[in-house]
């Protein structure tokens, strides 16, 4: 008998708040976490980015631990997980951690490579805090990591290798990444505008997100989410630019549909990747059109959070879950006028709408893509 897999707990730590409810309130009020920053560490000129307030972070962390051993990213991850670890984890509980660069800021001003730079060490510190019993499974697969971790957890539980899983995803705003995106001419000089005709790049962000995934149906309440299909297929085109035909994304979504047993016409909402770079958004529009989904209400959350890298797939999934729970489509912030060659249905205002099935997609450097289909129970 095929196991059913549910997400029953969620939490996020972002510039828009340290719990889901506060984040949703800000989204309803169209308040973005992206601000103009003046910090010569990152840039000679002021720049737009979404950063978590350090004092607020430390204050929140101080309420759950007095330890000074944790890096900033570790604190963010622990804060994300803390309220949702309600079971006693055992040998059948998987722990998955998604990040692209982990404690990369620890490399600054160091002559030797610090132990904290190793991603398994980061994961072990988090695991020890919560007394997780199994070896952490770390996923580091560019910007799809957050949603790929959800797909991986679901696959492992479905295969009876585990019964449940805690998944945490996160990345920090770093000089390392900021400088790199700057080199790639990928940063916008204004708040980002996914799918818009005047879009000219992304804003960097930071966040952590955590979910609890289980095969235990008794823990699933009405309004919880079932994971019903996934796919994570490479474009095989270029290591830093997406396929012009959206090949990998199309195949990832098709693979998810095949598994889910539902049709494209049944999808009520798409939480897309929408980084606001010229190429990414164009590729997505082509992909969704190829799949006959050009009329499905679609948004990118990057207008609220910037691009949170390894956190983005999971953070945006959590927001998608709230959308489904509330039957509410959230605005794709930053969008004014369509600027992609194939038409897509960008959500222009917060509005009510029945949502039973939704699709989350992500794409990243290396030609990777991931798609997961969710069903509200």
């Amino acid at each position: 008998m095929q196991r059913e897999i549910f997400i029953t707990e969620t939490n996020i730590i972002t510039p828009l708040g340290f719990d889901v409810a506060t984040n949703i309130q800000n989204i309803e009020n169209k308040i973005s976490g992206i601000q103009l920053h003046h910090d010569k560490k990152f840039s000679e000129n002021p720049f737009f980015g979404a950063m978590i307030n350090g004092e607020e972070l430390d204050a929140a962390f101080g309420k759950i631990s007095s330890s000074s051993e944790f890096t900033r990213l570790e604190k963010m991850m622990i804060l994300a997980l803390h309220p949702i670890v309600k079971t006693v984890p055992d040998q059948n509980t998987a722990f998955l951690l998604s990040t692209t660069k982990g404690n990369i800021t620890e490399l600054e001003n160091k002559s030797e490579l610090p132990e904290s730079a190793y991603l398994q060490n980061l994961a072990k510190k988090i695991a020890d805090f919560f007394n997780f019993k199994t070896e952490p499974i770390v996923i580091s697969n560019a910007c799809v990591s957050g949603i790929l971790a959800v797909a991986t957890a679901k696959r492992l539980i479905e295969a009876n290798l585990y019964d449940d899983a805690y998944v945490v995803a996160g990345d920090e705003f770093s000089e390392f990444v900021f400088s790199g995106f700057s080199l790639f001419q990928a940063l916008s000089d204004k708040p980002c505008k996914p799918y818009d005709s005047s879009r000219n790049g992304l804003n960097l962000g930071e966040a952590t997100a955590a979910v609890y995934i289980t095969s235990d149906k008794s823990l699933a309440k009405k309004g919880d989410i079932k994971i019903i299909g996934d796919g994570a297929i490479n474009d095989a085109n270029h290591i830093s630019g997406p396929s012009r035909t959206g090949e990998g994304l199309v195949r990832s979504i098709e693979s998810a549909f095949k598994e889910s047993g539902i049709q494209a016409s049944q999808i009520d909402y798409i939480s897309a990747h929408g980084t606001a770079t010229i190429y990414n958004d164009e590729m997505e529009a082509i992909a969704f059109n190829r799949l006959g989904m050009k009329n499905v209400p679609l948004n990118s959350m990057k207008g609220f959070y910037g691009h949170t890298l390894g956190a983005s797939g999971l953070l945006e999934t959590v927001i998608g879950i709230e959308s489904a729970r509330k039957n509410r489509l959230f605005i794709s912030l930053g969008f004014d006028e369509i600027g992609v060659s194939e038409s897509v249905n960008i959500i222009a205002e917060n509005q009510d709408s029945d949502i039973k099935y939704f699709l989350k997609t992500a794409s990243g450097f290396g030609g990777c893509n991931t798609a997961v289909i969710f069903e509200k129970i």
Partner: protein
Amino acid sequence: MEEIKTYITAYCKIEKNQISLDGETVFHSEELSFQDFSKKSYQQFELNYPKFFKMDNLSKLAFLASEIILKGNLESERENNIALLFANKSSSLDTDVKYQKSISDKNEYFPSPGVFVYTLANICMGEISIKNQFKSENCFFIFDAFNSQFMADYGNLLLKTGKAEKVLCAWTELYQEEYQVFMCLVSKEGNLENTAENLEKLYKR
């Protein structure tokens, strides 16, 4: 899930200036830096893929192993649905450290986009996908050491759920001059079952 059986049908190892395929040494050189060793290997196997020289060391290592293991194992008539399941300990730290160095001095500040793009471990899978046109499942994991149980289990589930027809599993670890790749091709037909025990045996051989 269907009752599909899975088998290790080929394996390649590269470490300490030596390359072996299915347990037999196919190339070795005197002690060289990885950069020089990888170049010699490229020439030895007549790889004819100039993009190789743009890759960082982690990608070169993984790419070399993939070329050697896949030779003769690819279908030419149709697409190959070979998933890539890779893992290592150091992620892309070898390149990360180089890149960090290039941004640390504001007076000598000329970081390279060609270096930055390799500061993600999964790029090495992207390179293999591009060369072979593998439009397939990819995932890059980080473990402390080669995790034969996980690699066997995850490889098997990809095949048993129909997400792939074959899996290229690899432990592809590199940090400066310490490198090791152990790569296996897992298929639905063969002789040696894809189990943690068998993977461990081949890894240690």
